[in-house]
């Protein structure tokens, strides 16, 4: 047993296992409470209060839902392809969890499960696998609405996946590496924005901003596009055509019940968390705290390592709120508008943006 432990490979393996378990539990908990949060916020947006019966302020609602779903009756449609019918929900959840393995929640080595140099690509790969869940789910449930919903969803996700991939390129250009940890480290520190003509007394004319992605002018549009595609990828808000209640009943998971349906739901929210954490990593400087610097001094405190995690969670929460907020404010897009917007507007925009970013960086690189 002793020499077993001395082997570094085994050590890193066990340490990775521990981290995975932690993340898994954290995620399950976060998702259930995210659902709860969504229902609460949606309620307040619609001037009503969300669930507050179960436990104080309804905090125990998610647990109640979970237990309810556990005991609901399993129902498999006739002539449906049983294997695929069961496979679909699993495929919804699996890719999301895998992406978490590369997301840096805090300064390495503590808060990063693993750091591979193609982290971003892994994310893109896993997001593309997400399509299967919906497609298969729709098809396997042998139901016309489900099939149509599945096909629509897969078409939508494929189209927007393209735009999402391209919108991350300016960040890569800026960061110079595909590894997420590298990108976040690149976003540390400050960068001189502009020297104002008039200097504030005692602060000097220099305006310094934190090095986050969002603050670079050429990364703003990619962030917006990334955000839009994020909505599309997770089938939320304006793009939630697949399970549009009105037309297609519950979309691809009409036939699903109890635990399988729950898995779908879990998958959806987990995707939401993943995509927003990627957004945070790429554009909001990951575990770097904010800080303002003006003139020669500013408030910036690196703080201890776990502070990075706090900053990460705060930014994540903000984005989550934004997701939920958008969901209950924007109307659903028609399918042709959806596809048209994806191909005719987003795609060209991202390409142009990549061009601008590349030119600017080249000029600055050559200049600087």
């Amino acid at each position, binding site marked *: 047993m002793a020499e077993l432990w001395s082997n570094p*490979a085994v050590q890193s393996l066990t340490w990775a296992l521990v981290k995975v378990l932690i993340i898994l539990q954290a995620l399950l908990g976060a998702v259930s409470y995210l659902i709860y949060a969504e229902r609460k916020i949606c309620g307040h947006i619609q001037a009503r209060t969300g669930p507050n019966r179960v436990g104080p302020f309804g905090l125990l609602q998610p647990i109640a839902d979970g237990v309810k779903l556990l005991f609901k009756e399993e129902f498999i449609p006739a002539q449906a*392809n049983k294997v695929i019918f069961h496979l679909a929900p699993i495929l919804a959840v699996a890719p999301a969890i895998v992406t978490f393995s590369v997301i840096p929640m805090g300064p390495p080595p503590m808060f990063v499960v693993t750091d591979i140099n*193609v982290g971003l690509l*892994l994310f893109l*790969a896993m997001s*593309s696998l997400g399509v299967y869940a919906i497609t*298969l789910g729709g098809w396997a449930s042998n139901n016309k609405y489900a099939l149509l919903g599945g096909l629509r969803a*897969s078409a939508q996700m494929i189209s927007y996946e393209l735009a999402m991939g391209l919108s991350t390129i300016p960040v890569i250009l800026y960061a110079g590496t595909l*590894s997420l940890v590298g990108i976040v480290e690149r976003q540390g520190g400050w960068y001189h924005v502009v020297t104002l003509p008039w200097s504030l007394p005692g602060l000097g004319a220099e305006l310094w901003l934190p090095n986050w992605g969002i603050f670079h002018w050429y990364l703003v549009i990619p962030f917006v596009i990334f955000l839009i595609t994020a909505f599309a990828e997770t089938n939320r808000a304006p793009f939630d055509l697949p399970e549009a209640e009105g037309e297609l009943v519950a979309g691809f998971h009409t036939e699903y019940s109890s635990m399988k349906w729950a898995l779908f739901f879990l998958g959806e929210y987990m995707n939401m968390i993943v995509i927003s954490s990627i957004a945070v990593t790429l554009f909001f400087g990951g575990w770097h705290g904010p800080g303002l610097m003006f003139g020669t001094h500013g408030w910036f405190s690196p703080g201890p390592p776990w502070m990075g995690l706090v900053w990460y969670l705060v930014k994540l929460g903000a984005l989550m709120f934004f997701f939920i907020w958008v969901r209950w404010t924007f109307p659903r897009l028609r399918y042709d508008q959806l596809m048209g917007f994806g191909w005719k507007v987003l795609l060209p925009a991202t390409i142009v943006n990549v061009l601008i970013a590349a030119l600017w960086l080249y000029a600055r690189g050559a200049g600087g």
Partner: protein
Amino acid sequence: MTIALFVGFAALLVVTSLMVILHRNPVTSALFLVLAFCSLAGIYLLLHAEFLGMVQIVVYAGAIMVLFLFVIMYLNLQHDVESGVQIALRRGIGWLAGAGLLLAGATLLGRGLALGPAAEVSPDQASGNVAAIGKALYSRYLFPFELTSVLLLVAMVGVIVIARGRARSPREDA
């Protein structure tokens, strides 16, 4: 450690490939193919071709197989019926040919390719794979790269023309 992984992935690959051609239902074969691609991506990673691994999943598993599934579902293909003597004959011959091919390949392999052990790869290469590919792609292989873009364009145009079919092909409304 990597050997074990490799054997695992290889076994997975072979089994899934076999299942692809053996299974009657096209959808199941498609899914097995996806699994095969993923195991292949894994092997790429083991061979330090991370970029390819990821691209493999994005392109093959993510895009191509979705197309396949899309078409299978669109055409609503049911269980393949493979009956009749003529078909059995052809299957038999097919398997025989395959065996022959394998046999020939094996003997060739056994006799010919003693290329010696793979060269020890330098650790620093880990981060550079994607960068190196990028650099090579845009320097030495720029022309082929542009060519592939033209190819894809042509393919797109082709697909659109074919898919749209003739303006009022009689069977359009069927």
